[in-house]
Structures are given as structure tokens and as C-alpha cells.
């Protein structure tokens, strides 16, 4: 014994003390705090996986699918595991044909480095095979399946359907209560945006057991699931055949058309050109692509039918006619003489027909679209009188069609003119231009088709809408919104009869400007317009309806800078109307108005 017992005892005491401390902490962790750690370990290993609901399908009126889903593969990575792993970065770089630095930079943008980050959407099959083969070698690299939109009928109509894309930060904020995550695909424009909530369905959850790197463990006992609820299917009033025809007729033009069922307000065709490929927005749109779309002088991102407003030209002459008739400033037999122009103040306002139309009444003035007649007629009207009827026809107000971002155009009433020119800055001479649909007046094509419907139905019309019925997969039942018809007050049937007669003659009488829309077997009525505008050639307009006695459809055609309305837009309207009645003859059920 070299050392005294005291030394031994001190050392033993220290060791014993340390072991008592260890045992105490063990007791603390495993017995006192067991509950807390048990919960934490359970939380650790279970992870809630989101189950994306399939997006609702969009059908046309006869049940032809227009917008469907298809599976698409997404290359996604867990940034924290990949961004400092040169091997994985090199692998990804090879797959994506980018440099590792570029990938690193993109990973840095991930909001949460522990959650899968979608590096590339819609990868092709070759990339998928390589991923499947190698994903175990590169932790944190994986793929997911998501649902993408596809257009089985070949109708992409991006202005109508819109498109889906990654949810923006601001929208994420706005839709907090809806269980959204960054990277979720939502409707961005058009129909997809307007009905996004209904189309989207409800996210489901599956609780799975995962390991520390988030891989699903092989043993999945005890996992629970709450199914995703698929979105609602929409059956549109749209007819795929008419829409396709419209698309093809406008393939090389700027403009578009709207065709509606006058019996219920359902939209049969809605076409705006030029447009773009909606699928580029679902992938990862490059900045260059975006810049190209934004800066394109043809403005393919605008839906010309609802988001652009134009001077309507002569298609608006029925407003002045209505106002004059209703306000007893003129009647059917009011004659004016056209010598090719009229002086007002120190200016000469000329007719499109420099030779003059001679003496004509209201109906024939509509038929030949005589400007001089309408200058004179309009000068009998005050701006207030005219604006009242323009407003009754729905101008200057949104139609309320179920698409986002509708424009309301400009109706130059007293308030507008006072604001624009000052209270004393304008005179009733404004009516010269307004009466023939020029001046500060701006309208959208959907407003024009609604105005045409009102004339066709003599004041009774339904709100414009795309959706015919909705299928709810949860209740397995169809839902149809009851739309109440509206009636325009203050315009008598007698007035309608006169202007309808004028529109009849536009198409069916010799010398009418709209004979290009004439059909052999169905009586069409219409009105052409050739609207002066600051952007070059006049815009070519056509509005019309058919059959004359019991109207079923109304149409508005606009070709930007297309020249004469009768020459350019008339034939397009004729083709659409022809197709509509052919379809109806072949299969009356298809083209029949869905019962409102």
C-alpha cells in the first residue's frame, strides 16, 4: 500500500458521485420525462405526407373533356442534404444539363431547406429512369408525382381556361386558411383561376414512418390516412366544335369572338387571339420566355374579349336609334338626307360612302350604316339621353361573366365628360361621334354580345356565364346554379321591332353591309362596324343573332385592324352560325340549350 486510505477514498468518492449524477440523469430522462420524450420520438418518426387532390375536369356542353389531368414527374431534392454534396450536385447537373453552381443557386431560394424542393417539373422519361436507378446513391434526391393539365380535345384556349402555376407568395398569404404550401399549383388566369377553389379539391394526409433523412421506412404498420378529396368537375355551356372553329378562323388574326346562347346566357364559344401555350407556365418558366410574352407587341397575354376595350363603331348605332325612338326624337319614318357628309361648327363629318346615301329612313340607315343619318339623329339627342340607353344595354358595366379581371369599358356620360374635359369643356356636339360609336366610348366584346342578346330577345336576357353545371364527387351529384333572367326596362317592343328590322336588312336586303353572314336556311340579323382607332387600320366588328324570329344564338366578332366589319368579320360570324345550325340539325340534343 503506497498511498494512504484517505487518498483512495477521495478518488472513490469522486467517481461514485459522478456515477450517481449519471444515474440521476438517467432516472430523470427515462422515468420522470419519459412521456415527453416518447411523444417526441413518435413525432420524429411519423411525418404527414400531403396527398394532392386531383383537380377537377372541365367538359364542354356535350361532355367532351377539354381540360384533364395527366401524371407528371417532378425532380425534387431536400436542399439541406444536397447543397453541400458535390457528388449529388454533379449528378443533378448531369441530369438537368446545368452547372452545379446554377443548381446551388436555385436551391438557395428554397423557403425551407428540410422540405422537398421542386427543382424541375415535368421531367422526361429518360431523366426519370436515371433517377429511379440512382436515387439511393444520392440521399436527398428524389422525384414526386404531380398532376398536370392536358387538353385532350386540342383546345388550349388559354384566355378561356387560363392555366395553373406555382402559387405566389402573396396568394399564399391571402389563402392561408386553405392549407396551401409553396410550390402548390393553383389557377393563375382565366377559368382555372376563377374557379380555383372548386377545381382544386381538398388536400388529404397520410401519416407515414420515416427515417432521419425523411425516407419512408419499409415497415409502414400504424400509418393512417385521410384521403384527398378531388375537385369538382365543370361542364361548360361551351361547344368544343364551335370553339375549335373559332380558334382556327383566328389562327392568323388579332381579335376574337364571343358566341352565346340567347336563351340562357351560356357561352358557346369564346376565342381571343393571339394567345400562348398555357403549359409553359406549369413547368419552370424561364425569365426569357416570360419577357418575350410580356413584350410581344401583339399582347398575347390579354384576353381581348373581356380584358380589352375598343371603340365599337357602327355596331353601336342601335343605341342612338333606341334613344331617339324612346325619347320620341324620331320615328320609323324620320327621313334624313345623306350627301356624303355634314358640317358641324367648322368641321365636316363625312359618311363612309362619299357619294352619299340620299334620303333614307331609320331602318335603311341601319341597313347601309349611314353615318350622316346618325349624325343628324344623334344631334337631336342629349348626351344624357343617349348614355341612359347605352347604360340600359349594359355598356360601361361589367357583364359579370365568370372569368377574372373583366374590364368595364368607358361610357362617356355626363359625369365622365365633366371629369375628362371639365364642366364647361364639352358640348353636346360630342353626340356626333358617340352616336356612331366613336369618340371616348370603349366597349368589350362580351358587352357587345350581351347588348346584341338584349336586342335579339327584346329586353330579356340571362347573365353571361361559362358554367352549365358542376359535378360534386363528394355528393356524386350535379349542381346547377339557377340564373334569373333580367329584363331591360324602358325600351318598348315597338322600338326593338324597328331596330331588329334594321338588323334584318343589314344581312338580308340588297345593299346591306352584313350580307357576308347570310345563311340560306336560317334568318340571321346583324350589324357591322368599322371602328376608327389610333392604331392603324380600323377594327372590324360584327354583331348578330339568329334565327331572327326565335333567337338561339348571338355573336360578336372583332378583328383588330381588320378593315371593314362587313368584309372581314361578317364572314367569320357566318361560318360560326352555319356550324351552329349544322350541328343542331345533326344532333339537336347537342346544340339544344341546356335548360336553365
Amino acid at each position, binding site marked *: *500500500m503506497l498511498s494512504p486510505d484517505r487518498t483512495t477514498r477521495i*478518488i472513490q468518492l469522486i*467517481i461514485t458521485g459522478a456515477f450517481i449524477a449519471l444515474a440521476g440523469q438517467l432516472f430523470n430522462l*427515462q422515468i420522470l420525462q419519459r412521456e415527453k420524450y416518447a411523444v417526441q420520438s413518435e413525432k420524429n418518426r411519423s411525418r404527414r405526407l400531403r396527398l394532392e387532390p386531383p383537380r377537377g375536369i372541365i367538359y364542354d356542353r356535350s361532355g367532351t373533356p377539354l381540360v384533364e389531368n395527366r401524371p407528371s414527374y417532378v425532380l425534387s431534392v431536400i436542399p439541406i442534404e444536397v447543397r453541400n454534396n458535390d457528388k449529388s450536385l454533379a449528378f443533378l447537373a448531369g441530369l438537368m444539363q446545368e452547372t452545379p453552381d446554377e443548381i446551388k443557386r436555385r436551391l438557395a431560394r428554397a423557403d425551407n431547406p428540410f422540405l422537398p424542393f421542386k427543382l424541375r417539373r415535368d421531367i422526361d422519361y429518360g431523366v426519370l429512369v436515371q433517377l429511379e436507378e440512382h436515387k439511393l446513391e444520392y440521399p436527398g434526391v428524389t422525384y414526386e408525382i404531380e398532376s398536370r393539365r392536358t387538353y385532350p380535345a386540342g383546345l388550349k384556349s388559354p384566355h378561356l381556361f387560363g392555366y395553373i402555376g406555382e402559387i405566389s407568395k402573396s396568394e399564399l398569404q391571402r389563402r392561408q386558411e386553405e392549407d396551401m404550401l409553396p410550390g402548390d399549383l393553383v389557377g393563375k388566369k382565366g377559368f382555372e383561376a376563377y374557379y380555383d377553389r372548386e377545381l382544386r379539391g381538398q388536400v388529404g394526409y397520410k401519416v407515414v414512418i420515416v427515417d432521419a433523412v425523411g425516407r419512408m421506412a419499409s415497415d409502414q404498420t400504424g400509418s393512417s390516412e385521410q384521403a384527398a378529396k378531388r375537385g369538382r368537375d365543370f361542364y361548360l355551356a361551351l361547344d368544343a366544335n364551335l370553339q375549335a372553329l373559332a380558334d382556327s378562323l383566328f389562327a392568323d388574326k388579332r381579335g376574337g369572338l364571343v358566341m352565346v346562347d340567347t336563351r340562357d346566357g351560356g357561352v358557346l364559344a369564346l376565342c381571343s387571339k393571339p394567345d400562348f401555350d398555357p403549359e409553359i407556365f406549369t413547368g419552370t418558366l424561364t425569365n426569357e420566355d416570360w419577357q418575350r410574352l410580356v413584350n410581344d407587341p401583339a399582347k398575347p397575354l390579354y384576353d381581348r374579349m373581356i380584358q380589352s376595350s375598343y371603340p365599337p363603331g357602327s355596331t353601336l348605332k342601335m343605341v342612338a336609334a333606341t334613344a331617339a325612338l324612346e325619347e320620341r326624337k324620331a320615328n320609323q319614318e324620320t327621313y334624313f338626307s345623306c350627301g356624303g357628309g355634314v358640317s358641324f361648327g367648322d368641321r365636316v363629318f363625312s359618311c363612309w360612302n362619299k357619294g352619299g346615301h340620299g334620303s333614307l329612313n331609320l331602318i335603311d340607315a341601319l341597313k347601309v350604316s349611314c353615318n350622316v343619318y346618325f349624325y343628324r339623329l344623334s344631334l337631336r339627342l342629349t348626351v344624357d339621353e343617349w348614355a341612359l340607353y347605352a347604360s340600359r344595354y349594359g355598356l360601361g358595366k361589367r357583364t359579370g361573366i365568370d372569368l377574372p379581371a373583366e374590364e368595364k369599358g368607358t361610357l362617356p356620360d355626363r359625369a365622365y365628360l365633366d371629369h375628362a374635359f371639365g364642366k364647361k369643356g364639352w358640348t353636346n356636339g360630342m353626340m356626333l361621334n358617340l352616336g356612331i360609336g366613336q369618340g371616348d366610348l370603349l366597349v368589350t366584346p362580351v358587352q357587345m354580345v350581351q347588348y346584341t342578346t338584349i336586342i335579339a330577345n327584346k329586353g330579356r336576357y340571362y347573365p353571361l356565364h361559362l358554367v352549365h353545371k358542376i359535378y360534386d364527387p363528394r355528393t356524386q351529384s350535379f349542381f346547377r346554379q339557377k340564373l334569373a333572367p333580367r329584363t331591360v326596362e324602358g325600351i318598348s317592343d315597338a322600338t326593338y321591332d324597328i331596330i331588329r328590322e334594321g338588323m334584318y336588312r343589314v344581312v338580308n336586303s340588297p345593299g346591306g353591309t352584313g350580307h357576308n353572314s347570310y345563311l340560306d336556311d336560317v334568318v340571321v340579323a346583324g350589324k357591322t362596324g368599322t371602328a376608327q382607332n389610333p392604331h392603324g387600320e380600323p377594327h372590324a366588328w360584327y354583331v348578330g343573332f339568329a334565327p331572327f324570329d326565335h333567337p338561339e344564338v348571338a355573336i360578336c366578332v372583332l378583328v383588330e385592324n381588320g378593315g371593314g366589319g362587313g368584309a372581314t368579320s361578317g364572314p367569320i360570324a357566318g361560318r360560326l352560325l352555319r356550324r351552329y345550325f349544322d350541328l343542331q340539325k345533326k344532333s339537336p340534343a347537342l346544340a339544344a340549350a341546356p335548360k336553365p
Partner: protein
Amino acid sequence: MLDEIRNTRVDKVILICVLLFSLFSLLAVYSATHGSRVAAIHDNFYKQIIWVVAGLLLFFALTYVPLHIIFSLAYPLYGILLVMILGIDLVGSISGGAQRWFEVGGIKVQPSEFMKPVVVLTLARFLSPEHANPNRLKNLLIAFAIVLAPFVLVLKQPDLGTSLVYLSMVIPVLYWRGLSPFTIFVVVAPLFAFLASFNYYAFSAVILLISVVLYLSRRGKRVAWTVFVMNVFVGTLSPLVWSGLHGYQQQRILTFLGLVEDPRGVGYQIIQSMVAIGSGGIFGKGLLHGTQTQLRFLPAQHTDFIFSVLAEEWGFIGSLAVLALFFVFIMRAIKIAASSSYRFASLAAMGMATIFAFQAIVNLGMTMGIMPVTGVPLPFISYGGSAMLTNMTMAALLSNAITQRYF
């Protein structure tokens, strides 16, 4: 009773402990590795079988080696290992990476691990002559030099854990040899001065305390002033030393002290380990049924955090058994140190007892969240060939220290 033991060639308590350690190690390493999809980790269990068998063979073989041969081998082995560690340091500094081992025939050999018993034996040999009184400054300095040389080299690798193991046994061995408590105070005081130096008030308190002890010790003005000035010097210099530490070392210390939040770094490791241990409860989740282990939430679960595996799957009862086994083993080692007839054997036994105690306490404390993460493995249980052979060697030497009657 001791005479009975001396008649046998192997100390039975040590032997039984070593066999139980081996069994626990194999069970734990199997559980920690069998689910891995990484082949290299999966194979570690089979390697560990080889290491355990090789270790046990080494254990029995070493019990035949007389103490005087071990005595005479101490210095040469110390020299050889020091050169090897120096060589690894140089290679490491050239290749620019952390380097702790070299490869022989595909096997990684870690000389710093083998240095553990050797530095103990070297110190024991130096202190064993009658004239090697540690209270004399020269002897004290040499004793420290013996330990500080490998300490510095291994710290530079960088391997903080292993280097601290060397350091851990200096004071106990010197104390065992008869170092006066005042000298221990003089040696240890700068450590406190260092630790307190980052806070003005703490540092002032420590310096005040040192002054009081110096005054009460009545050692004379020269000694007192020297010690005082030295501590002030250390305290003012340590912030410079701190900035010389590796970032991850600073991080570990800060995380341990709770000064930084780090959910996925060092703190994350400790949290996952505590979750594993705590969720084990009284009876544990059962072998191979620990979710933290099997789903690999535990960091380094077959090496540094092997105890968390045991604790999760075997519960409080199993964990207590492991603790008890270490306690019995270490107490036995201290008993051997106190009972050995030879100063060399006694000092060596005390050194090894300290090394085992230090490693066990630091490692277990780390897994339970009451000690910093320093990278110290759990003796006998953690996966590792060099460590297993080293521990078996030390166990054999402990046994020899009590069973061999002739030097």
C-alpha cells in the same frame, strides 16, 4: 481474499466485466447497424465480432506478459507512438484534412488510441523510483511534459476527445504518487482562470478566490505572487487561445453552454440522443425495436452514441446495468491500484482507472445531455478496432497489476 486472487493468473472481476462488455457491445452494435442501407455501416457488426475476439485473445495473451517487461517497454513504445502520431500530423497538414489513422493492409490503425495506455505506463515508470517526488518542480514539469507532448499532437489532428483522455489522468496519478493538494491547486487554478476569463465578473471572482487560498496557504510572498500573476496572465491570454480553436470546437463548447441555438448541429445530436434515451422508459422498446435507432435519428449511433441505442432499447433497467458494470469495473481498478505491491503497477492501474472513468463519465454524460460533445467513445462498447484492442490491453494490465507477484 487478495491472496486468493493472486494465486489465479487473471483477475476474475476484470474478466467478468470484460466478457459482459463484449456481449453488450455486440448486441448494441448489431442493433445500431443492422438496419443501415449503407453496406460499410452494415458490415461494422461483423468487424466488431472480429475486434472482440481479437481483443479477448490479446487480453489473455497479455496476462502472460510479466510486469517488468511492460515496465521496460514503456519508454520505447512511447517514443515509437509519438513519432507515428507526429507522422500522421504531418501527412494531415500536407493533405489539408483531419487525419487520425494510417492504413495497414486495409485496416485503419489509430496510434493515438494505443497511446492511451502507453502514456499511462510512461508516466507510471517515470514516477515509480523513490526519488521521483512530484512535489519537486523538475519532476512535475517532466511528468507534465510526458502527457502534454501527445496531448498537443493529437489535439492538432484535430481530436479533442482523445487528447483530453491523456490529460484526464495526470492529476489523479500525480495525486496518487503524493502530489500535495496545494500543488494541485497551483496547477488547476489557471484552468479556472481560463474558463472564467470570458466574463469580467466571473474572472474577478476566480482571481479573488485564488488570492484567498494563497493567503490561507501561508506559502510565502514569492510563491503567492508568482501564482497570482500567472493566473492573471492566463486569464488575459485565453481569449487569444479561444480564437485559435477550430470553429466546430468553439461551436461545441458554446452549444453545450447553451449560448447558441443550433437545431440541426451539435445540439440536434444531443436532443436526438436524449429523445432516444428518454423514450426508452423503464423497460425499453426492446432489442431492434428502438425507433430512434432503427430509423437512424441518432448521430454516430454505433460509435460515440452507442449508449443511446442501449438505453432506448433496454430502458432504465438495462441502462442502469451498463452504468453499474462500468462502476464495478472502475471501482475494481481503483481497488487494484490501492492493493498492488509495486508502485509502477499501482500508478499504472490508477492511470488506467482514471482513463476508463473519464471516458465513461464524459461519454455517458454526453449522451444524456449533461456533458459537452467531445468525441470520446464509450470504452469497450463503442464500435472501433483500435479502441477495442486498447481497452482490452488496459484491462489485461489492470489484471496483471494485481495478479503478478513478481516484478
